[in-house]
């Protein structure tokens, strides 16, 4: 697929702190690329350099094979992590304001429909809920009918129902052929929405690829989970099985059937037995030794 965005050896320094350290990646047109990483990993800085909000210390960013110019803001839709709007303007007035700032735009009525803004369209932007605000910010990101959309942790702080609704809207945007760059630390969100992932930690890319590819390449085992107890822990140690002890015991197994037989033979209590596949969270812990939300 044709690359819409190429990031080459991107760096950002603040005095002696390195926020982004030599990051390179390519984004194909029409996909949803997820940037994952814990807080302070450099995701937002990377995205804001691509958006043109921050100046890179070094490196190149190419849009459709060429360096970005002032027209990039006409084709890019941006939803920041946290932004206030003009006070004392209604949602509809805010949409009209941003609508008038661009040369090519989407229909306001269509955006109201897509982002489900009907219920609060005449309310002041300061009087709407967190979920409603995120929907408005998404509508503003789409108001110029962008080719590429940047969504920086768009569902943070939303209740599960609002988050699900948001995901549906993002799916719709994707179906329109738009390219999406999504930063998130919700694994479920990344798995549901993203075609490609870029895992960033301490300003560097530590893994990239599709979710399936990443999991397959880093895990050749599944997890057998049991309730944590001292007795079970002792029994497993005697058995010589590889496991981790946290809130529960997680046994690494590349042959579930064989491992279960071993556990039964040694009379280990299996009342709480649960088998699960590795997740992106596991991947991140494996790669960095910390959880995504640390």
């Amino acid at each position, binding site marked *: 697929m044709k690359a819409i965005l190429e990031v080459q050896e991107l760096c950002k320094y603040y005095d002696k702190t390195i926020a982004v350290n030599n990051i390179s990646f390519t984004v194909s047109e029409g996909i949803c690329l997820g940037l994952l990483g814990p807080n302070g990993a450099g995701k937002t800085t990377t995205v804001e350099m691509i958006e*043109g*909000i921050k100046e890179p210390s070094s490196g190149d960013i190419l849009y459709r094979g060429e360096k970005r110019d002032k027209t990039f803001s006409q084709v890019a839709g941006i939803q920041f992590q946290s932004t*206030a709007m*003009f006070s*004392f303007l209604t949602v509809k007035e805010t949409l009209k304001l941003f609508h008038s700032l661009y040369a090519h735009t989407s229909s306001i009525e269509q955006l109201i429909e897509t982002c489900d803004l009907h219920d609060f369209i005449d309310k002041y932007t300061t009087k709407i809920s967190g979920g409603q605000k995120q929907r408005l910010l998404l509508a503003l990101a789409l108001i110029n009918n962008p080719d590429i959309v940047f969504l920086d942790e768009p569902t943070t702080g939303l209740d599960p129902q609002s988050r699900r609704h948001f995901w549906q809207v993002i799916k719709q945007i994707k179906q329109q052929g738009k390219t999406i760059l999504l930063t998130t630390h919700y694994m479920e969100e990344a798995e549901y929405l993203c075609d490609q992932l870029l895992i960033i930690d301490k300003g560097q890319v530590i893994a990239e690829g599709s979710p399936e590819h990443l999991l397959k390449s880093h895990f050749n085992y599944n997890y057998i989970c049991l309730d944590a107890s001292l007795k079970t822990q002792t029994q497993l140690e005697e058995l010589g099985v590889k496991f981790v002890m946290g809130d529960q015991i997680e046994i690494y197994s590349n042959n579930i059937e064989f491992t279960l037989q071993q556990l039964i033979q040694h009379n280990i209590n299996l009342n709480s037995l649960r088998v699960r596949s590795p997740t992106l969270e596991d991947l991140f812990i494996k790669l960095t030794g910390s959880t995504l939300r640390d």
Partner: protein
Amino acid sequence: MKNFLALLVARNKEYYRDKGALAWSFIFPIFIIMAFTFAFSDNQPTIFKIGVLQPTDVNTTADKLPKVLQADYIQQLPFDDLDKALSRIKHHQIDLLFDIQKKQYWINKRSSAGQALEVLLSTDSRQYHKQVIEGKEIRYVDWAMPGVLGMNLMFSALFGVGFVIVRYRKNGVLKRLQATPVTALEFLAAQVISRLCVIITVVTIIYIGCDLFIDFLMIGNYWLLYVIAFLGGFSMISFGLVLTSRTESEELAGGLLNFASFPMLLLSELWFALDSAPNWLIGISQLLPLTHTVQAAREVMINGATLADISHHLWALTFMCIIFLFIASMLFRWYRE
């Protein structure tokens, strides 16, 4: 232009829908009018004022003045410009003008204080040549009125835009606008023009209100007064933009804006003239936009000055508008990294 107009409309809506801010904008002038009316309900001077021509040093001059005019209750004001001094006596701002070298003095025949000083002078053994001048009294309230208007204009210009910019920067509105095709100049121009509309409206209200209660002097052209208010407001808004071009701290912005407003309050001849101040202080005052605004307005209101008469003030204000706006646009940051 489309972006500028959209932002101008948005800012104006934001302003007039903020009921608290809007109410204050109209209540504040009422307070000023009330305070002003109360303060100047009795404006009798407590001392006599004598203008002394061609002084090189106040003390030296005082030594040469007739002894009868050297009493503690007589304030001496040196003048090196005869026209300026005559204007003052014409408008009763000084009670008597004395030229030591030519041994002559001027009094306003309508001034009772001047006549009292003349009686006092007649007790001196030497003879002085009398010159009579005529002119309507300029009360202190007439003299101070441009200062009241100027002060309101300054606070509204400096704080009205400065704090809004800092708030926008702090809560991310500027960052959001940076992601659009809006340029810094379009954004700043919209803020300046929006605030100018507010300033001109509020200053007009104060003017009309004060005129109803106090009936102060206004000889010149009203449109000229609007030109002064426009340029004065523009220059001080631009000055406010320079001060708040980068910070996102409201505390720092408040400190900087106060730091800028105090010298203007003291040195821009709002409440008292700087006639007897050292030259270096007068020089500093000429660098302040409020000084030119107030002096130009005063010349129009009291002396009926024409556009040509106050052109030097208008050029100075225009120059400051350009310089401040240029510096503000160079320093301006949408948000602090």
